[in-house]
């Protein structure tokens, strides 16, 4: 699996740190209930198929959201986290 950094192009997987599901971008509001927070922190759809995950590109310091297949490891898209809509 090679990932595409929007700044640096297609790079070796060793340059990236995996940082979990992109669901963490959808942070509940300050007044959210305890259940909403528990859901946000722990519960996952865990899709077998297309998934969105966060990676950190260590050399250039960019956080990216990668859309990829969890079955084939094919990378479908990658964009900077700041452009990703929660």
């Amino acid at each position: 699996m090679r990932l595409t950094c929007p700044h640096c192009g297609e790079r070796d997987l060793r340059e990236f740190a995996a940082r979990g599901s992109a669901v963490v971008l959808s942070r509940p509001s300050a007044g959210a209930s305890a259940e909403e927070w528990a859901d946000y922190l722990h519960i996952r759809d865990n899709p077998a198929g297309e998934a969105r995950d966060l990676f950190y590109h260590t050399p250039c310091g960019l956080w990216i959201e990668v859309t990829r297949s969890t079955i084939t490891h094919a990378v479908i898209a990658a964009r900077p986290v700041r452009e990703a809509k929660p």
Partner: protein
Amino acid sequence: MRYSGARVILEGLRGQRGWRPAWREPAPKSDYDIVIIGGGGHGLSTAYYLAREHGAKSVAVLERGWLGSGNIGRNTTIVRANYYLPGNSEFYSHSLKMWEGLERELNYNVMHSQRGLINLFHSDGQRDAFARRGNAMANQGDDAILLDRDGVRKHLPYLDFDNPRFPVYGGLLHPRGGTARHDAVAWGYARAADRRGVDLIQNCEVTGIDVQNGRVTGLQTTRGSIRAKKVGIVVAGRSSQVAAMAGLRLPIESHVLQAFVTEGLKPVINHVVSFGMGHFYISQSDKGGLVFGGDIDFYPSYAQRGNLPMAEHVMEAAMTLMPVIGQARVLRSWGGIMDMTPDGSPIIDKTGIDGLYIDCGWNYGGFKAVPASGFAFAHLIAQDRPHRIAERFRLDRFTTGRGLMDEEGTGAQHNLH
């Protein structure tokens, strides 16, 4: 047919013509009292203990592929009880005691070998932590011996003791730890469950879970509809998909964990050796291959294969710990799908739907848990209340925050274990 040494000799004299299939291949009936989804180690042992301990007469195990085609055949076969936290400690202690009587119980050679497990440490702080863990193991009634550097050298003379980054300070020896033959555990439970009347149904994928008025009523499968009073889900890496059929969402991410085996060698490694600082552990199979592994790849995956960076990392750790391994050649590698929970500990609980139960979240520690997981899950399904050895494996601990069991102390969050 009862297996024994005498039977082997007798069949040898008769030209091996008397052996029979180890289990039946029944067609699914339309109705069962209890259906277990998942014919792996945990599912088969659950079915066996439902029949053995609770007298269940009408039990089926549904397996999408063939029996034992998942993680029970894709692990590194280590059996140990060296946990620290209450909840995990009593559970794995119970499981190890069950392993020690398993071959007699099942009349099946699972090649359980208590060759001793050594966890290495490389600093004064780590020594203190392992001394504390050893005391916790002793308090639980299990065995632990703190070895100094020379003590480790007597057991493992082939290590690099003076690696500049990770010099070996000592190790925690768990003499009752060891390995077992992975496939044989599944086959042994399958045969023993079949002999007690459990229907083992292969090539039968569950496609739907029927729920009416908050109660499970049956299953839709690729081999027809099956009514069931109670259903147990025990499908490891596929837990999220199967639970979703009943509208449940779980605190689980599925990740790939890789393992490796070398060509067969003469005996060189007599223990299970764990090098935690390098995310590396190794043992030698009875066939001679060095079996070793490391950490998960850290991105969600259902691929049953990993990527090369983690393979490289594992090989580097191997060379750091024991340069002698550089002479061996890797024969093959594989990956299993780990059902990772936020705190790294498992779940055996009710689901909120009457008659539907779940056993999942074994992270990368499911193999050694096979006997006690089945034993406790069978108890939960049959009695509708948890067994005392597994009463802390609650599904709701991630919502309430009570009873989280973060054995590694890294934080009860996804992507940290």
